[in-house]
């Protein structure tokens, strides 16, 4: 099962769960699985065309994923996917 790390701003849509495990084989299927399980995530993660929004980065291990290649990115049993949104807090 690949694991998606859910960032704090999205956790209010995932019942505060910090990780999401998926048996899907590609990144785009894994994201679809996440969104289908937690529909509230959708508008905050994806734009109208279903692409990851431009203020959010997706990483597999330590490397950024090109948002246009989500469909072709294959996942293995122990792949760790991180969703990293822009956050601005500081004071």
């Amino acid at each position: 099962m690949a694991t998606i790390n859910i960032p704090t701003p999205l956790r209010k849509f995932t019942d505060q769960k910090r990780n999401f495990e998926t048996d899907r084989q590609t990144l785009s299927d894994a994201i679809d699985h996440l969104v289908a399980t937690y529909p509230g995530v959708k508008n905050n993660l994806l734009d109208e065309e279903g692409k990851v929004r431009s203020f959010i980065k997706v990483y597999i291990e330590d490397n950024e994923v090109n948002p246009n290649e989500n469909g072709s990115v294959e996942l293995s049993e122990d792949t760790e996917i991180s969703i990293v949104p822009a956050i601005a807090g500081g004071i």
Partner: protein
Amino acid sequence: MNNWNDVEFSKEELGHYSRHLTIPEFGMEGQKKLKAAKVLAVGTGGLGAPMLQYLAAAGVGTIGIIDFDKIEASNLHRQVLFGVSDIGRPKVEVTKERLLEINPHITVNVYETQLTSENALDILKGYDVVADGTDNFPTRYLVNDASVMLDIPNVHGSIFQFEGQVSVFNYVDDEGNRGPNYRDLFPEPPPPGLVPSCAEAGVLGVLPGIIGCLQASEVIKIITGIGEPLAGRLFLFDALSFKTRTVKITKNRENPLTGEHPTLTELIDYQAFCGIPGQGQEAELNIPEVSVQEYKEWLTHGEDIQLIDVREPHEYEIAEIGGELIPLNTVLDHADKISRDKKVVVHCRSGKRSADAIRQLRDKYGFNNLYNLKGGILAWSKEIDESVPQY
């Protein structure tokens, strides 16, 4: 960082810095570089408080601090530069006092103003490093763009609830390679309201302490040239799971500042860039408002008014003024609970989310009887009922 060779120390300074001087990689050279350096901290809040204390203690010769806020009680759980007796005083004024108490051998420049497109280049110019500890996206992009235009490394820290991010932007290494900047990481900001601020969403008090200290460490590394700055990488920290990760930041060919076809050659209107309406535009949105005094008068005169509270349940637990709780992100789903045949006052903490709720309800369902409570529950607490807690 210029002319550090000529820097001299008094006997008192040598005593103050002795534990730095005894680190072989740091030594007198590192300490001289620190004393010759000028660092500008943008924001003297949660991130700035720990960072500035360490930079001052470490002996950064000139520290600039820019902030226009005054100290409030809600700052004190994390902004450890300040105490209860400082409430109401300008942050920069108290910060300067504390920093000079920590280290009288440094110079502290104070800018009690908001960083804007008009003043940013003048203020940043002459500093060797900028440390960004602000709390909003427009200023993040402004600091980024100004530091790129002035060729200054930008040590970035940001926090949200239990999570922090750190990076060093616009860093030029010894071989002249320029690292990525904030626009490479996040080409565009989120739309207003999608990522709540710390004021709305809260933050674990100790988190900015951790992230601000990491910023201080990166500033010191950049100045002294020791170690490898966090350039081209983004450090992620989750206090809840104690997971840390350092991911790579790739350059964006379409970066309007440093990409293949740069189009940004001067600072822009960052409020507009972040989709935040300016004063004129806000008036165009024409959201009807009611002051807390007017609303109180309506109640006193026995008017039949529905009060809707669009904050989150945990905020309602802290303080409430009798409103019906319908959180902003569910307001369209519960439009049937909102009256159409009498005045409806909508409130949140400060008035921003309630304005957004009214706009959504008006645009989607045509409500024309909604009034935004100006200043929200905070204004109610300040002007009408002091027993309502402020948070």
